[in-house]
């Protein structure tokens, strides 16, 4: 289990334990954390699991896969610190990861 902190746009924090090999998106959905829609269910076919990851953690994440940036172009208010949470696989190295949720996904 890996600790992940999801911070909603209004500042509300949710710290949960997520099983390794799940995605950060699944960690949110399974724990009923609002702010991640994941319309396509993790197929990298929408941009509704968009999160922001601050630099300290951003650089420790596995690199973006091909096509992730293309999908992020279609996210709500993307920034250089944007990631699709369905593309981040939870592992021991990510223990303590903090992700910030956008104001909305659509």
């Amino acid at each position, binding site marked *: 289990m890996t600790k992940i902190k999801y911070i909603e746009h209004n500042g509300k924090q949710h710290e949960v334990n997520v099983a390794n090999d799940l995605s950060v998106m699944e960690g949110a959905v399974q724990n009923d954390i609002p702010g991640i*829609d994941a319309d*396509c269910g993790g197929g990298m076919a*929408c941009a509704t699991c968009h999160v922001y990851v601050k630099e300290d953690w951003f650089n420790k994440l596995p690199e973006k896969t091909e096509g992730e*940036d293309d999908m992020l172009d279609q996210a*709500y208010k993307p920034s*250089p610190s944007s990631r699709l949470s369905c593309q981040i696989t939870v592992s021991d190295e990510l223990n303590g990861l903090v992700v910030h949720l956008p104001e909305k996904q659509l």
Partner: protein
Amino acid sequence: MIDTDVLIVGAGPTGLFCAHQLGIVGLKCEIVDNLNKLGGQCIELYPDKPIYDIPAIPECTGEELTNNLIEQIKPFNFNFHLNDRVEEVKKDKNKWLVKTNKGKEFKVSSIIIAGGVGSFEPRKFSLKECEKFEGKEIFYSIKDKNIFNNKTVSIFGGGDAALDWAIELSAISKVQLIHRRDEFRGAQASVNKVKELNKEGKIELLTKYQLSSIKGDKKIESISIKHDDGDTKNIKTDYLLGFFGLIMQLGPITNWRLNLDKKHIPVNTENFETNQKGIFAIGDICTYTGKLKLILSGFHEGALAARGCFKYARPNEKLRFEFTTTSKSVHNRLGIK
């Protein structure tokens, strides 16, 4: 007014196969979809991505799956109404009256919603001020390019629509192409063409910039764009075009008095009927205990919903269960001699 048995909302794989099942049990249907082509998410989101979990098909793309489904329902000659969206649904005695965006009207005994996660709509600028200029100086699609003649046009986006319009309008307008990063996701040939036109001074390229504010009261005077490094630029423009891809929204379905659970429609698992008698929901849009968002689940749901429609369309007949391998009447419907 088109009078038929069933109206299917959504022409993705689930809607298409459900049409097949309606045909098999001898019912007629019409199919409406907001996109300009059949296939739904399979075509719009991942036409080239292989799918590995369609029973008995080890691997196929979204496009191949769609083409096969279209082929499979050909014998029934059902009508499609593309580029149109169902707006209004009204109960009229034991029938449903349905009206679309384009004003088409249907009278049916059942409606099957196979709408995926909703209809595809263009993603808009996230700035609130953009709303009041929409349709006047801000557009998300182009109907008449002549209005941009000799004007300054700021195009936002990095996909094919943004690139294609930048190229096309560079012949008649002053074009500024603004994108949030250096890479473009459109076709390589278009990217090369844009870079060439940029060198010739026909397209101004502003990358790593996003829209930050708009100045102007009745008319747009100028806009500010903000670079990733925080630097802000003020630029004059007459028009803004946004091409940020499509997002999925439930849209008018939310007004049909259906129970909703977040963005999904709860159904029973006997025939996938909703809380409204005669309205069914299948595929990604429906929810029930154990729901899996798989294409194969959508097929199953469609088969049962089609049979659920039978009692409304043919209240005085009994539905007979028949196999396609042996039934004469099914063979007739399929046009097999």
